[in-house]
């Protein structure tokens, strides 16, 4: 089973969940429903998938200055991913986690990992440590 060390972008608790590997960049604003965590962008290849509770692999993000508000709303409504793995840090998106932490809400860990490693985790249950280890533990 695959294991990789990611670089911590925003700290969070250890967690586990089924991997959701996106195959195209996504805009959280307009692309993810803040009330349900459903991918709402009809043009996105993973349209209809729910990001809540998943270990979410993001090959890219499309910047919107309201992406942070959507991510914070997902945390507040308990619809955030279990962990977030980003190919590139997106400061505006991750601001949603930074502010949620300041509010004292439990936030997913966010880490950086090159997207060439993403596919090895697809269709697996994945464990993530607070230190940034990402491990596929079982086929899902």
């Amino acid at each position: 089973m695959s294991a990789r060390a990611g670089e911590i972008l925003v700290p969070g608790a250890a967690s586990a969940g089924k991997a959701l590997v996106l195959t195209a960049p996504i805009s959280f604003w307009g692309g993810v429903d803040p009330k349900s965590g459903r991918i709402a962008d009809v043009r996105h290849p993973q349209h209809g998938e729910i990001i809540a509770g998943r270990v979410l692999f993001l090959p890219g993000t499309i910047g919107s200055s309201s992406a942070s508000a959507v991510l914070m709303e997902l945390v507040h409504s308990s619809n955030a991913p279990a962990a977030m793995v980003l190919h590139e840090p997106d400061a505006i998106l991750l601001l949603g986690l930074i502010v949620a932490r300041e509010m004292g809400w439990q936030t997913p860990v966010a880490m950086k990992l090159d997207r060439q490693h993403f596919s090895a985790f697809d269709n697996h249950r994945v464990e993530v440590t607070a230190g940034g280890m990402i491990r596929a533990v079982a086929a899902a």
Partner: protein
Amino acid sequence: MSLELSAGERAVAAGSDGRAMAMRIVADSARLLGAPGLIPIASAHIDGALYHGDSGTLFAERLVAGGARVAVRATLNVGALDLTGCARVRLEEPARSMARRMMEAYRKLGCEQSWTCAPYQAGHRPAFGTDVAWGESNAVVFCNSVLGARTNRYGDFLDIACAISGRAPDYGLHRPENRRPTLTFDVSDLPAAFLADETAWPVLGSLYGREVGNAVGIVTGVKKHPGEDALKAFGAAAASSGAVGLFHIAGVTPEAGTFGKIEAETTIHVTPEMAADARKRLSTAQTVDRLDAVAIGSPHLSLDEFGALERLLAGRKLSVPLYACTGRHILTELDKAGRRKALESCGVTIVADTCVVVTPILADRHDGVLMTNSGKFAQYAPGNTGYGVLYGSLADCVESAVAGRPSFAEIDR
């Protein structure tokens, strides 16, 4: 490169109050952006008071509870409600109360009750070369391009955190080397009559945004200063079709002449066909035989723009609603001279503090057709309101609202 905070900044961040929270948010963002440090700012324009969900209201109230106050002048962008009572907003409870609580919290933080997306026409004009932290894409692009002050696009949470801490991350458009144009957008092939028309600027802005994305470009071939309202329309359209934060126009905007010889990597030669195509793309409605509403004022209308509206309307009664979005700074002026009353008696609905694409004001219909002269409304109305859009000049908008059906002046150029 790692972030270095000054002793003073570290001391503030180590606290437990609202100001400490704001400083930590700015510092954490700076770290993610790869900024080497923080810089002092002279003012802020806050976009974060528009309700998107309860978490934003709770955040603002936490800052208030922590005793936070803005350290610099901070104006407010639109909210989700019209607090002046001019227009009725159909926002339902409990969202309505949460939106009102949010607006109230930002007032308590010491922000000015400007509630406008055109703060630069409401007396908030930072000096050339000063660093500021502004939100709202059209205000950001105007501030950078037309005023020559320096800001990145500061979104929700970071805008108010910068205003409270008086600091911003030192990166992006705050740094002179990132303000140099790398691309030329040449309009010299366009007829002078086209450039003199008000519709040229939102149309060219939407084309510019699509072509340029987030690069910094310089527009060449503009022989006459088109006026501030035209630059406002250009920037708003560019920032809604692309991620434009700063543009230059040779001979017009204040920084354009400061770069010496510009060796642009790319030159876009704009043809009349490209401009005509960009104009067509602003309309999304399938048919031109019906009209449900007209909306103008994105960005918020200036007093001059109200003057143009009054001249075109000439006291006639409207057959479909015309929503004229503006700020309370203009409302006060209109009230003084009895102009608001005259406009309302013709059937104009003035919308203050907010606008028709950020909160439900238009009648709720899935098949509605909206006419506008704003490139920004044209961009956002279909997604945010469900209405199809017809793009036209201000004169087209007024004639259509009077006639109750779309009416376009002959375009012979």
